[in-house]
């Protein structure tokens, strides 16, 4: 019997039959996905509960604006309002001002409005770290919200982090400026590629994309087995294990091997390991 003109050929149908089931997800992978999904759902719901509803925020902003304008109008101070707007827009004032003139930086600081809370996003995993670890910037989650804002170019982020890392490695604030100044000259091909891989892994980790983080780390391991960022690589892998699979073994091994690492405290927290923080001057507790 002749097949209908639109039907697939015999070979094509045989291939589709043979491949049937080949794309199915394994039970173990499905379980991992569900567990990771549950954590993202909970983080999502928590961040929604914390953030004020958007409509309410808009209503409050409208009320405050209306109230301010009304108060200014009542005082007959529209001139002052327009002056404020001009200053906010950076327009030089045309007439003499009755206010004392402060330096530009002071003006901006005084007039700067508090920024609205960021849009709740489950893609940004929630982390709470008691103190900032300067050298841990490369994989510090909290940097993500500030450093990966759309206003910054994608290329600027790795460069800035490169500078931050070299500054952190020398441990001086002055070297940060130095690093920023001559970062172009020191950004040779190999180091740049290695750092790009680590940053790709770190960004993926921050965004909860653990598979992508693992892929980047694995690529780094293949290309730069003894690279300058092997410690970061191990830390990212340990964090992936803890966050995605609740598997603290790698994290525990990392902390045992590198108890003084700047990433150790973060790993202890994310992997729910016993904390090693001791009062200043005291000896580190032993596990």
């Amino acid at each position, binding site marked *: 019997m002749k097949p209908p003109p639109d039907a697939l050929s015999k070979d094509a149908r045989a291939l589709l039959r*043979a491949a049937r089931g*080949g794309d*199915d997800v394994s039970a173990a*992978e*499905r379980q991992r996905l*569900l567990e990771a*999904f549950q954590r993202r759902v909970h983080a*999502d719901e928590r961040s929604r509960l914390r953030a004020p509803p958007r409509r309410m925020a808009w209503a409050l902003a409208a009320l405050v604006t209306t109230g301010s304008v009304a108060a200014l109008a009542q005082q007959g101070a529209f001139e002052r309002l327009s002056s404020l707007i001009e200053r906010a827009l950076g327009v030089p004032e045309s007439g003499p001002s009755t206010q004392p003139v402060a330096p530009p930086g002071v003006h901006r600081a005084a007039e700067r409005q508090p920024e609205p809370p960021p849009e709740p996003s489950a893609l940004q995993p929630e982390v709470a770290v008691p103190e900032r670890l300067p050298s841990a910037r490369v994989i510090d989650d909290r940097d993500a919200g500030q450093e990966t804002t759309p206003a910054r170019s994608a290329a600027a982020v790795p460069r800035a982090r490169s500078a931050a890392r070299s500054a952190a490695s020398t441990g001086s604030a002055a070297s940060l400026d130095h690093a920023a100044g001559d970062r172009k000259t020191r950004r040779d091909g190999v180091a740049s590629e290695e750092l790009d891989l680590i940053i790709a892994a770190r960004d993926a980790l921050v965004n909860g994309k653990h598979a992508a983080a693992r892929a980047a780390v694995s690529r780094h391991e293949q290309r730069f087995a003894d690279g300058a960022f092997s410690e970061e690589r191990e830390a990212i892998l340990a964090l992936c294990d803890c966050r995605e699979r609740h598997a603290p073994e790698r994290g525990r091994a990392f902390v045992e091997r590198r108890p003084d690492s700047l990433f150790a405290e973060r790993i202890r927290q994310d992997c729910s390991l016993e904390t090693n923080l001791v009062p200043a001057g005291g000896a580190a507790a032993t596990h």
Partner: protein
Amino acid sequence: MLTALASRPVPVANPAASVTELEAQYAETIDLLWRNFRRLGVPDAVLPDAVQDALLVVHRRRADFRGEATFLTWVYGVLLRVASGYRRSASRAAAVFDRREPLAIDSATSPSPDPFEQLEQHAATELLHRLLDELPDEARAVFVLVELEELTIEAAARALGLRVTTCKSRLRSARRAFDAACARERARHERLEVK
């Protein structure tokens, strides 16, 4: 499986849902997302992330589901949009992730424990993906939904946001292109055998 998913009620929000509860709600959705992301060309390295993202979209926006289509069709719509985004970012990130990491051969559940059949299935799946890669994205989506997921043309058109006639036309050209790719593959195989 598809019938079960199509008749399943829309998942209800529950912030404190356990893994078991989520599994009851989303296990079939995960299966559907996983296999179709692979067929739609999402790289294996980011497959779990793509599934997570699509699941989260389904979970967050389930309240927006108005019942104009079946829940299944709505999920396909989400799937196609997320897959499109991942394909775009995959091509952007090709410099970093330029290596397609094939999943382990035993990562797919197989109804048969026979390793030879499993191997054959794996080879067929690889070939299928290669041939699907040759289709234009628009034709590929229609082909996957109709030929592999066995959706009706009307349901596929709704998931893709297309007119039925457009969907039919794309399916026709996708079938022709897939047949031609199959024929090329067979010719290549026969040439190799002769050598």
